[in-house]
């Protein structure tokens, strides 16, 4: 408001005051309007889907108004944490699974949805699904979709090299030199950034050890130094056998999103170890003529578990201090189970967990996608070994990645990398895995 507009504004304020006094009192029998605030992050399609669903929800429940507070991915967590720190968080929030350990270590950081069973139809979610959102016996969040990383390959590029898409680790490693020979030294069977490398190496090791990597109880790695060295050596092998680009080469493209990596778009990097819930964007940016396909999950000889990291792709939680838990539950139920909302989102965020949602999508005949197929594949794979949420804690992640980076740039050897991963990550875990009840939560 411009300083010179003060006078008109004063007039307007007086007019407003006058109007307020003259306004009739609200009718005594109307239901009081409840206003809910909901926050989410996403891209264009997600925003449209949410907004359409919210309008439909408001039509169904005329006394509830929902205000959407949304952003792109960048900045969302900063804002949410500031809001939580300041006590101004919205009633309903879209959250990531690994935020549960951050904001709700004792389970009290978010509203216990078990108490709202009935208003939100929890029977659509099986026990495992509800467990992923349960902390210390309290259901903090419901999963929208589950996801795991599986193998997707660019069939076109492989065909150009005269190969079919790999079905075993050996075939993958064999493909490396063939790519170099037949297509050129710029061609690689896999595109990886260090986060992907970490996930892949974890899968490799877990396929042998059959244990999850992090033990929250003891606040340590559930693995030995030798296991860490195996991870490091595996990364090195991927580079030396030309399966992935060396670190300096991969870094030359800068801090860019996976689907915007130029070599990916043109097909030079011909595969990704990627989340089933987000693979759509990878396929979308490929240059026309390229085809992305799901590959069988690569397993080691004698492996009894696939070493998958199968966890909720996205969840929705309710503010523990909300004034309107019942209305929030109604909203949750609508977003997860109502046919309109389910269709609006489609497979945007992965294959839904809610049984009724899946039924709706199947009935509408929504076409199979790479993500859908990926999730179906996961269902067939042995994956009893889970993983702690702390694996995705930023400090832990970066602890691993910094060491992989040093290894990738030749600063240290694989043995040294293994040793450092063991000591550094253990030290980090000791610091960040804090037992509940040391002053956190509400």
């Amino acid at each position: 408001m411009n300083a010179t507009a003060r006078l008109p504004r004063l007039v307007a304020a007086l007019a407003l005051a006058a109007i307020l006094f003259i306004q009739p009192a609200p009718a005594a029998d109307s239901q009081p309007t409840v206003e809910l605030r909901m926050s989410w992050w996403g891209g264009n399609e997600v925003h449209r889907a949410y907004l359409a669903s919210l309008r439909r929800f408001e039509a169904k429940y005329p006394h509830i108004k929902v205000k959407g507070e949304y952003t792109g991915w960048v900045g969302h967590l900063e804002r949410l944490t500031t809001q939580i720190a300041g006590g101004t968080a919205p009633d309903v929030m879209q959250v990531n699974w690994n935020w549960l350990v951050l904001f709700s270590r004792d389970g009290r950081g978010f509203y216990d949805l078990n108490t709202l069973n009935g208003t939100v139809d929890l029977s659509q979610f099986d026990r495992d699904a509800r467990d992923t959102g349960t902390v210390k016996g309290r259901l903090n969040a419901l999963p929208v979709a589950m996801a795991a990383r599986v193998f997707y390959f660019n069939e076109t590029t492989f065909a150009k090299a005269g190969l079919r898409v790999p079905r075993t680790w050996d075939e993958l490693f064999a493909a490396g030199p063939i790519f170099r020979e037949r297509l050129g030294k710029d061609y690689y069977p896999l595109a990886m950034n260090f986060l992907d490398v970490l996930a892949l190496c974890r899968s490799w090791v877990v396929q042998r050890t059959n244990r999850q990597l992090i033990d929250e109880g003891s606040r340590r790695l559930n693995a030995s130094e030798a296991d860490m060295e195996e991870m490091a050596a595996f990364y090195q092998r991927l580079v030396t056998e030309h399966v992935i680009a060396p670190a300096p080469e991969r870094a030359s493209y800068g801090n860019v999103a996976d689907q915007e990596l130029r070599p990916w778009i043109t097909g030079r990097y011909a595969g990704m170890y990627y989340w089933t819930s987000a693979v759509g964007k990878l396929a979308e940016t490929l240059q026309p003529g390229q085809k992305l396909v799901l590959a069988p999950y690569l397993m080691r000889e004698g492996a009894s578990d696939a070493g998958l990291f199968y966890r909720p792709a996205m969840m929705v939680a309710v503010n523990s201090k909300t004034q309107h838990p019942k209305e929030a539950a109604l909203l949750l139920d609508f977003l997860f189970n109502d046919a309109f909302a389910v269709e609006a989102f489609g497979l945007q965020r992965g294959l839904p967990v809610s049984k009724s949602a899946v039924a709706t999508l199947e009935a509408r005949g929504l076409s199979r996608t790479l993500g859908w197929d990926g999730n179906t594949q996961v269902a067939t794979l042995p994956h009893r070994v889970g993983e702690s949420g702390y694996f995705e804690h930023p400090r832990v992640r970066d602890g691993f990645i910094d060491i992989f980076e040093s290894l990738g740039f030749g600063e240290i050897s694989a043995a040294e990398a293994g040793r450092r991963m063991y000591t550094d990550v253990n030290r980090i875990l000791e610091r960040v895995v804090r037992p509940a009840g040391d002053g956190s939560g509400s």
Partner: protein
Amino acid sequence: MIYGSRMSGLLYLSPYLLGLAVFTLFPFVASLLLSFSDYRLQDPVSAAQIIGFENYQAMLHDRTFGKSLLVTLVYVFLTVPLKLAFALFIAFVLNFRLRGIGAFRTAYYLPSILGGSVAIAVVWRYVFAGDGLLNQAFVLMGAAPINWLGEPAYAMGSIVLLRLWQFGSAMVIFLAGLQGIPTDLYEAARLDGASAWQVFRRITLPLLTPVIFFNFIMQVIQAFQEFNGPYVITGGGPLKSTYLLPLMIYEEAFKYFEVGYASALSWALFVLVALFTALAFRSSKYWVFYAQERGEGDKS
């Protein structure tokens, strides 16, 4: 002092004093207190405990902090002189009534306008990529391409160049300063037969020193606070070679939620820059010439 009372001086300063009390003091003191605490962002503020100098001690043992400090200093020492020299040079060239000069000035100022906008990230990552614009130009000229973003040594070059590319603000201030020099001084000098170089050395430069000083201080401060470049283009890498302190502070606060430690880092940075600035102010006595204060000594 020309004007009547000291009281009217206070009156002029009153917005600042008020603002200091209301808007500035609290966050400042709060962040100082936080630096002595173990406050983590995801916890309520009441859960924070005072831990004395532990954060500062941890800083001394933190390898990442050492690296960050080093690259920040390198960055400042590289960009400040280069940017000032370039901005001054271009300001001279532009301080002329040539035809179309307005268009040129606008063109040079454009990069500064983009500043931290999201478009810069896309453009710049494309310019400096291994197969990007700059390398394509190199190859065209017969030189070898450089791995700007993938080699620790060159990554620093990419963010330095980004900063130099945005010299527009400094240039504008120099332009404004050049405009403030009375033209009759130039005329008098010409009448006395002075050469262009003598005019520059004896008239322009001395009268420009307050502005040069200002730009110098500001460039140093801003260089120490550079965040956008590393954040969007390199992410601080590779191998933390572009992990400037402001980026580290941001990540500590908003990625790792260690607000206590981030506050301590900020105050360490504060002390460092304050030292630089204080030294600069001291030195200004010797080389900055304020037109009306001959004989009145320095008032910093």
